[in-house]
């Protein structure tokens, strides 16, 4: 008769006798050594810069179209051109050609489904030469300016989390979710 030294070995023997449960027990053994270190909510807040389409993740702060124009003309115009057109980087406004034309123009106003994406993208990636250096107020302001250029908001709008998450972009319903329909095929 085998002498059971530890309860673990006893459990294993019982599981072996039980047969089917053995596989899941072995899978548990194959799992990692559990070396993750707990992350505090302060740490997570400092790391997390994702802005969800419903507005979750938008920070406090606000900005105006006029402030945004000043920032744009200092920090963005060199690549994106005056009023978001004619630069060597992406056209940001002024789509003359519709999405069904021979040469469609995909811009924020004509193509983007969510305005929150604009805040998220500018805050994390722009300006290309010094990404992540704009303050939250500055990001709200330059987002407001680009939304204004695209005819989405009025020139006197003060943009903050509440105003931004309430915006419905013109092309919101222009997308087919291929993952839901066919698993991404």
């Amino acid at each position, binding site marked *: 008769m085998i002498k059971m030294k530890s309860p673990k070995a006893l459990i294993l023997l019982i599981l072996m006798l039980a047969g089917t449960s053995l596989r899941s027990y072995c899978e548990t053994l194959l799992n990692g050594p559990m070396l*993750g270190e*707990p*992350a505090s909510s302060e740490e997570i807040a400092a790391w*997390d810069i994702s802005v*969800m389409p419903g507005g979750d993740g938008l920070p406090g702060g606000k900005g105006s179209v006029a402030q945004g124009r000043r920032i744009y003309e200092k920090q963005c115009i060199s690549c994106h051109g005056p009023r978001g057109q004619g630069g060597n980087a992406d056209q940001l406004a002024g789509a003359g050609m519709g999405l069904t034309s021979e040469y469609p123009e995909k811009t924020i106003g004509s193509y983007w489904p969510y305005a*929150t994406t604009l805040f998220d993208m500018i805050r994390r990636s722009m300006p290309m*030469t010094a*990404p992540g250096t704009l303050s939250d107020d500055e990001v709200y302001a330059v987002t407001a300016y680009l939304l204004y250029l695209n005819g989405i908001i009025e020139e006197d709008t003060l943009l903050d989390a509440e105003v931004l998450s309430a915006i419905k972009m013109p092309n919101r319903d222009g*997308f087919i979710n291929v993952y839901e329909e066919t698993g991404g095929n």
Partner: protein
Amino acid sequence: MQEVAGNGLLDRRLFLKTGFGIGAATLLAPVVMKNLEAAPEAAPVNTASPPWMHTPGAGYSTYGMPSKFEDDVVRFPSANSAIPGNGVSWTPLHLLEGTITPNGLHYERHHNGVPQINPSQHRLLIHGLVKNPSFFSIENLLRYPLRSRICFVECGGNSNAGWNKSPIRSEAGYFHGLVSCSEWTGIPLPVLLDEVKPTKKAHWLIAEGADAFAMQMSIPLEKAMDDAMLALYQNGERIRPENGYPLRLILPGWEGVMNVKWLRRLKLTDCPVMARNETSRYTELLPDGKARMFTMVMQAKSLITSPSANMLLREAGLYQITGLAWSGRGKITRVDVTADGGNTWAEAELQEPVLSKSFTRFRIPWQWNGSPATLQSRATDESGYVQPQRKDLVAERGRHGFFHYNAIVSWQIDEFGSVSHVYDKDEIAESSDPVDIDAGWD
């Protein structure tokens, strides 16, 4: 030698048969035209007793490099002149053999350059809809049980010059080479997810990179639990900086951009974040103005890598046609080849092992009689999906989708043996402007 399809295609098993049965015929190889022009005159040597057998060779090296006579086997970079870190570099598929891409030749697509990350200063955070939000240091991740798998990674924008009205003139790899295949080694993602314990509401993961673009993409939890991996090694060595050192998310068979490099954060959520690169880009505009979104799976594709564009067949005779096929849905089950522009097809030999979501090398012998020929390959995968003709793909998608071009590729050989890229025989070039697609690499 019996033809198995028109214009000289021979039985795929020809080279395997003992006795060969082809008499005195020797196998010929196409040459790359650019090399022919640039070939330096090498001084004649007595190959029976070459000089390098009479002087000691070079000493040891800490990290080996290719022969200096192979210095044309390089990636082809193409970046935005104002932002050198925004662009791509293509793998020279037409100059490589086998199925594994050497690490230094793996294709690149970065949005704002390659960060140089000290692994001791990098951590992965997993948080959001989880019971135990946690940090993982690279040192700790290296202590988890590792697994390896071979798979391709392909940029969603690979081959996009195919949408152009007239056929692009580049070499095969510099047109289709935003795809590479490696053996990746790392931690199956379910192991770490099991440790942080996602809540019932979690359906997506937002993956974020530690580059100057802070690349962000949404991944369905279902895929993460299926075959996702946190890769630390590529082809046996730690991942190269341009491929995501020290940590890369690998999603076998799915769009390159989702295989987030320099991975720093995974946030579990109930819905996708609608990142810029899953809305404004990496979506495909259709002729009716609607756009396909979350087209994650890279569909079956194949192309002949030799002979291919801008090569030269110097004489009529026996050649081995070879190329690559791959599918994001699983295994390649069959590759057919035609030498007469699609009138008749013959099945090519698939090099073993044929692995799921990996490069599969195909080969077939071909007797070129010296007259014009049009070569094509057509892949079929285990789901039954067949690689489409260009005209069918364009009819279905229009020409402004930019991403996910996987049509059959045609190489035309003229009576002088020079190979060029053409479209299907029943399609005429629609325009003389070769760069008429609606978006550049930015």
